[in-house]
Each structure stands twice: as C-alpha cells, then as structure tokens.
C-alpha cells in the first residue's frame, strides 16, 4: 500500500457520503453541460434558420409601405446589373377551412406567395414528402409537415381559402415542408403557394392585391455594393435592405433571454455543487482530525496530507464530471425536445461538439477541485498534537470561509462568462450578472445570518414538536459553518424558483394589463383583409348581443425629424368608444383632456417606451406621415402605458379615426373591437362574433385569450428553467443528507443519552427530521427574499414594455417554495433519521477506565 491509497480508502470507507457528493457534482455538471449544449443548439438554429430563410440570397429588399412592391419595382430589381436571381415573396395572414364536411374546421395561417421557378433557384426548400410548387398546377400548396400531421392532412387534401373571390378553386396540398426555412415561420402555421394564384384569389374581394413584402436578390461576386447603390438610386418606393447577418442578429436578439437564463442556471448549478463539495470534504477533514494528526505525528508532511485530500477532491471531480456530462447529454436531449415542442426557443437537433463536452468536464472538474482546496488546506494544517487531544478541534469559522467561498463563486462566474456568449441583446450581460450576483451574494449572506434566522424560524417547530423541535432547532447551532453551507446550497435553488415565478407572474400581469387596456369591451374580430369601415360597420354592429363596435385602423408610418425619417406604426381609434369603455392607461397627460384633444383632431397618444426613450411629453409635437407621403404635425396629448401591437417594438401611435381618415387617408380596418351587451349570454355573443369572423375570413379574439397566449409561451420557457432550478434544489437536498448524517454520527453518544432518558425511536427520528425541516424552512424563507430581489431587479432593469405592470408577487408559489424547502429537506432527513434511530445505546454509553 502507498500513502496515496489512504485517499481512495477514505472515500470507500464512507460510501454513502462519497456517492451523494459525486451525484451532487454530477447533477451540477449535468445542468451545466445540458445548458451548454442547448445554448449551442439555439445558436446553431439561429444560423441555420437565417441561412434557410435567405438561401442563396445576398440581399433582402423589404418594402416599407403596407402596399408592398409594385410589379414595376420587382422588374426593376430583377434588372439591376449584378443581380443573378430575384425571388419576390408576397405575404398575408389568412384563414383556411376544411372542405365542407361534418368536421368543419378553420385555421389561421401565414400565406406566402412565391414564384415557383425563382424560388426553387433561391432556396433549397426541404420537403418531408411530396413535390415543390409547379406553375402548371397553380392551386398546389405546401404546408408544414408537423402542422399537417397534427391536423390530419396529407398530400392531395384540399383546403378552402376563406375570403377569396368567386370562382377560385380550392387549394391542394402537394408537398409537406420540413420544420425549417419557410416551413418554420409562424410556428409552422404557414402555407406557401404560387404568388400569382394568391394575388388572383384575393384581388377582387379585397380590392388590394396581396402585397409583395420583400424581394430576395442573389448577387454576382463582389457586386453587392454596386447593386445596393443601384437600388438606392433607382427604386422610388420606400424600402429597407437587409443581409443574412441582419437576420441572424435579429433572431439572436430574440433568444437573448434564453441565453441569459441558461447562463444563470449553469452558475446556480455550479455554485450549489461547489457548496456541496466544500461542505462534504470539510466534514471529512473534521471527522478525521485525529487520524490526520496521527499521520502527521508519524512523519507525514503537510504537503502529503494536502495531496491525500486533493486526490479525494480529484476523484470526486472526475467521477462527478464524467457522470454529469453523460447525464447532461440526456438532459439536453429532453430540453431540446421540449423547446422544439413549445417553439419557445429556436433549436436544432442535439449538436455534438467535443469542445462543449470538454468544456463541461473542465468547468466541473475545476470548480470541484477549487471547492476541495480549502478543506484540503485545512487538513494539511492539522497539528500532530490534534491526535492527542480528547475532543475535536473546532472547525474554521464562517467568517474565515466566506471570503474563500465568495472567491470560489466569483471564479465560477468568470469561468462561466468565458464559456457563454452573453453579447446578445441590450442589457442581458449586466442583468444576468446582477441576477447571479444577488442570488449568490444573498445566499452567502443567509449563510452568515443563519443562527438568528434559525432561532426565529425554528421557534414554531420547537413549540409544535416539543422536545424534538427544541433539540432539532438547537442542533442547527452545533456546527454553524456546515449548517450554513447546507442551508446556502438549498437556498440558492429555491431562490431561483422564486425569481422565475415572480418574473413569470410579472410578465403575465403585464400581458393582462396590456391586452385589457387596448381592447375596449374585451372582445374583437380580426378580418381576413382590411375592409372599408363604413361598409363593414353595419355587419359588425349587427352581431348578436353587440353593444358597441369600433374599428381600429392600422398602418406603417414614419416619424420625420428634419431630413431623417424613422419607422413607426399608426393606429386610428374612436376616442369616445375608448374613453367610455375605460381603455388605455395614461401615464402622462389627463385622460379626459387627452381624449378630448383626440376628438378635436391634430393630436396623438404616444406609447410609454417611445416617450421614455425620446424624452417626449404632452405638449410636444411629432411630424408623422405615411411612407412616401407628406408628414402631418401632431401634438402629443398623452402618454399611454400600452398601445396596440405593431411591427415596431414600441407599439402604435394613436390618433383619432377622423384624423386617420382625413389626414392620412386610412379608411379600411382589419381589427374591430366589440363589446357585448350585459344581458346577452356571453356564449351566444361569442358564437355570433365567431360566425361573423369566419364569414369574413377572419378570427375572433378576446382579451383573455390574447393575454393567455402571451403568458403561455413565456410560462413554458419559465417552466423549463424551473426544472433546472429544481435540480439545484435536489443537489441542495443531497447536501442536507450529508450534513445530517455527519451530525448524527457525531452525536451518537448524545442520542444514546436521550434514548436512555426515555426518548423513543420515533422521537429520535422526528428530532432529526425536524432539524432537516428547519433547514428547509430557513432555506425557503430566505429564498423568498433573495428570489424576489432578483425578480425585482430583473423587472426594474428590463424595458418598461416588458414589465410595465411592475413586480407581481406569486403568493401561492412563495408558500409552495417554503413547503418545497421543508419537504425536500425533510425527505433528505429521513436517511439520517433512520441512522439516528439505529444508534446503539450500549455501544455509545460505555465508560472508559
């Protein structure tokens, strides 16, 4: 046997503790590697999606005007010198229905019109089955394979385009698109069809052709700049030129939240794992002080002792990291499958990068070894005299260990930053780092303040559980550092759950408030196409049970300042209807005066994000115009918390319907807000609304449904991270098992004394489980404070649009987190409790002569 073998024997001698620690490290590394892999899948998906959407196109020329490009402009673009191929894409939201049958169903789809031959040359459309579009079969269409499967459609099935003119044949599915490129747009609710057929189908009924939104251009090598200059000089209609890089950046920004959360949770998992390793090896050193002293007395150098403990840390690091990477790949498969199913984040299949696996191994190993370093150093400092002392030397104080732990966590954070791409989107780096800082800093603070916290939180347990509660509470003060680290590890995961739930609830509250404030009456109908307001009004007003029907016109617009114009969105509303129904939340300007100003004309309401960013206030003026038209000067009458959704992120500028008509020439509306009569059954009203929507190729909407949709997609993403946070709680639970098992072993004689004084086996078990429950309760309560602070910071630092309703406190979740903490810790306490119950009285009460 060699001296180093003591390290392995030390691990083997405490199989449960070793196994739990390895599992803890493995779970931490699993979360780390799973988020690394998933994050990479998202990055790759962004690149792939951008490439699939662009195909061979070098430039995308996007029409700024709602009417899109005219045929003349498209021809002009085709003829620009250096352009090898041009593919025009028309776009419209439409409703399709099944052919008449008992099972009559309708679907809202994004309709994309393409020129089959140009399109085939521009993009490699991946088909799951069937054929690509053929100009010889004009009514052939492509749909997403997943959508088709979900709704029971296949090749050859026919669908009806609602709202089309008379005499247009039904469309027939000729091919099923893979979940990529055009097939992935609109979450797969997409139909690709021949552009000419699409234009013909709606031309007569809508009085406006289906607009060509963009034209993709394939450009000869090194001619991109020339082509762009020629377009700038030659195209008279307003346009924007985009590149693949622009699309990638846009998609990437959309995923910034995911990347930030992934980073945060990796840090949480790493930190909890580090806490566990530090605590476990610290226990082992305390337990083996006498043995180490004997080794030192026999001539073992402190460096050799250090080596023994570092070997133990190394073995745990290697075993835990290897197992963690394997588990992480499995977890990543589940995460990616989940994300694909919810479409909350764009992800590809599971990417395999040896680099990611190596990085996870390296990070896991380094953090574990770093966590093992302090106990190893403590072991190397054990004096030979310690072997001769009857009682164990007191461990290091928490104050001595806190700086080291803070350094460890800070180091893990830096390593994590090196591993994660955090340059996505505004403020994501600062926000995530601040969130992680509060989470970890707060946890260390709780560790430092554990004793007063435990004294307060443990009081009800002591009152309720009598001697078991009193002793359980008292036991927490026995080894304060160990208990503090255990509570800290449990707290961090629970705090993450609280933070996620509070952020989710806040986003949901914002969505509710937003939707309710912009849809007077709470119900609406979006027609298949924009239609003249005066023409549609009688039909909308005749909806059974409708008390009020008000049109909302929408249009792209520009805000002109000097020689520059920037993109905006304009909506015309009926001020009286909005005022009477209590719609819109004013953050600046008096409500009555603002509506009066709208009615008077020449006034505009500005969404808060825009006002905050640009320093706009009531009384200021804006020059607003439609693209290509002369701008109109409007005075800001008020600033609203939420406005109607638009293609620009701020929301729409709101003017009166009269101004929309007279100053901007907008007379057609797609969206109508409808309020029900109080005495009409809501189901009858909804049916009538639904019927009118269907008849006009549109859909009915309610404020509740819209809010639910907005909240649900966020909820799914948050739910995913909740799972990761719960894994961190599980790791914390393993720490509780280790700590209590060690505590029970140390207190064997004391437990025997209690037994001799009449404490039953059940009472002993209850004492240990109560001790665990108090740890869980302290962790849960501390987690509420820390988690809410993280959520508040997130809400405060985010843009006013994301969390305008402020921090919503999820009370039920808070109670559940405390119960979860108590439950996990109590479950973790069962094994130590059983061990305590098996404590032999006679073995532990023997005297020495």
């Amino acid at each position: 046997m060699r001296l180093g073998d003591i390290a392995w024997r030390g691990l083997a001698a405490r199989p449960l503790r070793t196994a739990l620690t390895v599992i803890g490290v493995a779970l931490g590394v699993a979360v780390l590697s799973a988020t690394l892999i998933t994050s990479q899948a998202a990055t790759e998906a962004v690149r792939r999606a951008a490439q699939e959407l662009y195909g061979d196109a070098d430039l995308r020329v996007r029409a700024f005007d709602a009417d899109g490009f005219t045929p003349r402009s498209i021809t002009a673009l085709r003829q620009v010198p250096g352009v090898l191929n041009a593919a025009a894409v028309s776009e419209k939201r439409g409703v399709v229905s099944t052919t008449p049958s008992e099972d009559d169903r309708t679907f809202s789809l994004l309709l994309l019109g393409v020129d089959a031959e140009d399109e085939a040359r521009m993009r490699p459309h991946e088909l799951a089955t069937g054929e690509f579009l053929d100009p010889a079969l004009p009514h052939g269409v492509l749909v997403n394979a997943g959508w088709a499967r979900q709704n029971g459609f296949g090749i050859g099935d026919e669908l009806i385009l609602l709202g089309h003119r008379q005499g247009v044949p039904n469309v027939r599915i000729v091919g099923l698109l893979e979940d990529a490129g055009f097939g992935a747009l609109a979450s797969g609710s997409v139909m690709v069809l021949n552009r000419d057929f699409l234009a013909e189908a709606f031309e007569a009924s809508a009085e406006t052709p289906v607009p060509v939104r963009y034209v993709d251009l394939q450009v000869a090598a090194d001619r991109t700049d020339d082509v762009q200059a020629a377009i700038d000089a030659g195209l008279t209609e307003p346009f924007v030129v985009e590149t693949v890089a622009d699309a990638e950046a846009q998609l990437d920004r959309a995923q910034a939240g995911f990347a930030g959360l992934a980073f945060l949770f990796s840090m949480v998992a790493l930190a909890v794992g580090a806490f566990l390793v530090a605590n476990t090896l610290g226990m082992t050193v305390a337990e083996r002080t006498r043995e180490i002293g004997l080794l030192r007395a026999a001539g073992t150098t402190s460096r050799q002792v250090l080596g023994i403990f570092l070997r133990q840390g190394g073995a745990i690091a290697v075993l835990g990291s290897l197992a963690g990477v394997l588990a992480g790949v499995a977890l990543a498969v589940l995460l990616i499958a989940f994300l694909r199913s919810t479409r909350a984040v764009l992800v590809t299949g599971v990417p395999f990068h040896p680099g990611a696996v190596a990085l996870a191994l390296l990070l896991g190993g380094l953090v574990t070894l770093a966590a093992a370093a302090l106990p190893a150093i403590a072991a190397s400092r054990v004096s030979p005299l310690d072997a001769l002392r009857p009682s164990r030397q007191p461990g290091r104080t928490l104050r001595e260990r806190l700086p080291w732990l803070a350094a460890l966590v800070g180091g893990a954070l830096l390593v994590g930053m090196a591993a994660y791409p955090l340059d996505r989107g505004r403020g994501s780096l600062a926000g995530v780092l601040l969130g992680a800082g509060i989470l970890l800093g707060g946890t260390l603070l709780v560790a430092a303040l554990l004793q007063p916290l435990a004294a307060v939180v443990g009081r009800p347990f002591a009152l309720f559980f009598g001697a078991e509660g009193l002793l359980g509470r008292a036991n927490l003060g026995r080894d304060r550092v160990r208990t503090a680290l255990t509570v800290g590890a449990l707290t961090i995961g629970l705090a993450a759950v609280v933070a996620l739930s509070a952020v989710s609830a806040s986003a949901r509250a914002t969505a509710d408030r937003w939707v309710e404030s912009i849809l007077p009456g709470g119900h609406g109908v979006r027609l298949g196409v924009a239609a003249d307001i005066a023409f549609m009004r009688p039909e909308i007003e005749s909806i059974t049970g409708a008390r009020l029907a008000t049109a909302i016109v929408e249009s792209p617009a520009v805000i002109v300042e000097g020689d520059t114009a920037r993109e905006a969105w304009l909506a015309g509303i009926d001020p009286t209807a909005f005022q009477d129904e209590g719609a819109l939340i004013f953050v600046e300007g008096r409500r009555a005066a603002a509506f009066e100003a709208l009615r008077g004309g020449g006034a505009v309401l500005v969404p808060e994000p825009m006002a905050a960013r640009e320093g706009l206030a009531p009384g200021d003026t804006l020059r607003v115009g439609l693209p290509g038209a002369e701008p109109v000067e409007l005075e800001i009458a008020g600033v609203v918390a939420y406005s109607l959704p638009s293609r620009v992120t701020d929301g729409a500028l709101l003017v009166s319907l009269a101004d929309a008509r007279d100053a901007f020439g907008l007379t057609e509306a797609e969206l109508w807000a409808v309020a029900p009569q109080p005495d009409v059954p809501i189901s009858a009203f909804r049916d009538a609304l639904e019927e009118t929507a269907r008849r006009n190729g549109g859909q009915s909407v309610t404020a509740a449904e819209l809010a639910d949709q907005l909240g649900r997609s966020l909820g799914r993403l948050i739910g995913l991270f909740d799972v990761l946070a719960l894994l961190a709680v599980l790791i914390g639970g393993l720490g509780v098992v280790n700590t209590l098992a060690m505590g029970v072993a140390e207190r064997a004689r004391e437990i025997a004394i209690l037994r001799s004084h009449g404490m039953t086996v059940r009472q002993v078990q209850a004492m240990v489980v109560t001790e665990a429950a108090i740890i869980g309760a302290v962790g849960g309560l501390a987690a509420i404070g820390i988690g809410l602070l993280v959520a508040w910071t997130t809400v405060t630092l985010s843009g006013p649009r994301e969390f305008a309703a402020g921090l919503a406190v999820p009370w039920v979740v808070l109670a559940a987190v405390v119960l979860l903490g108590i439950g996990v810790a109590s479950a973790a306490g069962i094994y130590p409790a059983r061990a305590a119950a098996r404590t032999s009285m006679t073995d532990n009460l023997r005297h020495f002569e």
Partner: protein
Amino acid sequence: MPAILEARDLVKRYPVGSSSVEALRGVSLTVEQGEFVAIMGTSGSGKSTMLHLLGGLDRPTSGEVVIDGVEISRLDDESATLTRRAKTGFVFQFFNLIPLLNVAENVALPFLIAGGSQAEHRARVDELLELVGLSGKAGNRPDQLSAGEQQRVALARALATGPAILMADEPTGNLDYTTGTEILDLLWDSCDRLGQTIVLVTHAAHAAAYADRVLVVQDGAILDEIKLGRRRDHEARPLIARLAALGL
C-alpha cells in the same frame, strides 16, 4: 423493604464472528427500595453489561429483569423506552449534556421528552438545581460549567422525574478525586435523605464504599456480595480489606 429491582438468571451473549462471547452468565440479584447498591469489578468483568440490562438499555439473551413490577426485559423497544422514561434515571461517566440547551433546559429534558413543557415543571427543576447546588446557574450553558458542575446537572436530570431507580455508570470516572467525592456525596444524600434507590457501577473502591451493599462481579458472574450498611463516614478500608481477601 420491597424489592424495586429484580434480575433472574441473566445471560448475555454477544456474537463474535461465527461464535459468541458470554458477557453475563446467569446473574440474579435483588435491589430493595431505598437501597444503595454498588456493582464493582475489573475492566471487562461484565458490570456495565449488567447495568445496561438492569436499566432496560439492552435486552438479555435469557433471564428477566423486573423494575418496579414491570418485566422490562420482555417489552418491545417502544414499551421498554416508556418504562425507562417513567421508572429509571441515568448518570454516565461523560456528562453528555446537550450543549445548546441551558442548565435548566437540560434538567427539564426528561419532561420535554415526555411531551411536557419547561414552564410546567419549573418548580421541580428549581428544586433539583437547589439539591445539586446550582441554583444560580439555571441559565448557563454547559460549556460555562466546570466538569463537576456538569455532572451535577446530569444528576439533577436523572432525578427529574423521580425515578424508581437511579443507575450511575462510573459517574466519577471523568472527575478529579475531590469533585468525584462531591458527586458521590450528592448521590448518597439523595439516597439517605430522599430514599432514592441507586445502583452504582464503579471500579473504584472509594466510590463503592458509599454503598450499603457491594456486588463484586468477575467473568460475568457475581463473585461475592459485601454488606457495608448505611454509613455516614464512607470509609473505604473495610471494603478494600474484603476485596483483598477475595484476591482483587
């Protein structure tokens, strides 16, 4: 005087590998109420095993133990624990106070274990602390007490419920002579003044000399019984002479 503790033909075997070691070989004894009995023997003689069986901490391989009319050796663990709680008190070599409870809480521990509260038994705790001379230290933590004071607290705790019998296993083994004598004086006083029945296990003759009767144990059996009677002087020389005659 009626017998408060009876042991009949106690045998205790411990398995060692495939065979077993006989720690007690058919021990029988009776302790009367109010009696102070010492069990004395050399290391490994079986005296502690005997105390564990007599106190219901362990179960005999065969034979029976009856404490205050209850045959504890036949009871399951739960019932034996409840019997122990009601009828016995223990003092051990290591005082084993709960470090995070104060003196009064440690003394009240048997009441707390039984489901009571400290407030309900405050008067009894105060009385016991006065008995052991620690009235002014009710709020102190164990680590603020000397070794002798800690053992006094352990003694008060053992007497808290007014047990039928007090078992003391080398209670002076971790104390210096003077402090140990103070503890023995307290034990004797509680027996003589309060009528507390005491069984003391010790290897020290000066401690055993406090007893009314000394059972000398050797090789798992009672070698001899030495009756000293109730004496105020606790003089050890007569006992030492008897032990010497036995070749011990």
